């Protein structure tokens, strides 16, 4: 009977199979890693587009408030004002402005704080921007109001 430890027949085949399996596993891992990072890069651009869509909603609302087209000073502090779709179009640069809503704090008509929220949607990505701003009467026409941004928060 031949010794199991000294007989080397079949070792070449075993070695090749082990080596091939090793290279195969490494290749699979590299491929899986690059596919997942490619998917993340795609998701990242969607997130950025959603953010800028939400930002566009806020900026358009600021423009409407500043020019006096929407007068929040006459709005009750418990009331929420919706800008989409009556004042701001929902479709934006291939994405969607889900909503832009604002409500005010304080009773003074000259100076008050508003909290505004805007939802930007692009494919599977969503971004909510929450902005606090101080609105005050402007002495420089054609603006009726001055806007000072107090805080700018992002929720994804």
């Amino acid at each position, binding site marked *: 009977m031949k010794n199991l430890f000294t007989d080397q027949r079949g070792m070449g*085949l075993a070695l*090749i199979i082990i080596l091939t399996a090793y290279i195969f596993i490494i290749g699979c891992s*590299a*491929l899986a*890693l*690059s596919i997942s990072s490619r998917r993340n890069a795609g998701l990242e*651009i969607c997130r*950025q587009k959603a953010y*800028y869509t939400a930002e*566009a909603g806020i900026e358009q609302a600021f423009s409407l408030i500043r020019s006096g087209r929407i007068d929040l000073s006459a709005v009750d502090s418990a009331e929420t004002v919706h800008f989409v779709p009556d004042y701001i179009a929902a479709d934006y640069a291939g994405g969607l402005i889900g909503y832009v809503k604002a409500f005010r704090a304080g009773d003074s008509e000259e100076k008050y704080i508003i909290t505004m929220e805007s939802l930007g949607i692009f494919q599977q990505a969503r971004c909510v921007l929450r902005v606090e701003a101080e609105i005050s009467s402007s002495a420089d026409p054609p603006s009726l109001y001055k806007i000072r941004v107090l805080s700018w928060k992002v929720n994804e």
Partner: protein
Amino acid sequence: MEIIIALTVLALLFPVIAYMQAKGTASYTFTSQQVEVQESLRIALSKMSTELKTASPSTVRISNDGRKISFDNSERTAGFRYDPYSREVESYINGVWLPFASNIEDVLFQYYPELAVVDITVKGRNGISETQELTTTVSLRVR
């Protein structure tokens, strides 16, 4: 006999492994170029929207088919333009145009004076990456 079997197995598996490695490398290159473009677009849009917010609406001028914007803010005359030869976006600082974002394929400014808002669209591409596009709206603060 053993060598022949080993070589046959190797010959069958080698093209598969080589294909997977090549795919992985191509995917890695694509992703890194894609990320590079995304960063360029983000930087370009962030800088332009931040500076445009301080622009005085009556001073905003758009030229070069929407690829150049000039404006005054409380401190100086500023502006942005797209340079198609170097594929960069440039900023006007102290009389000189200086680049601040590369891998840009196109830039478009649209100004709506009645609302005092500017729409900015930036497109970017690098190597084998897909063309990516970011758009935002800026409401001009100083009036």
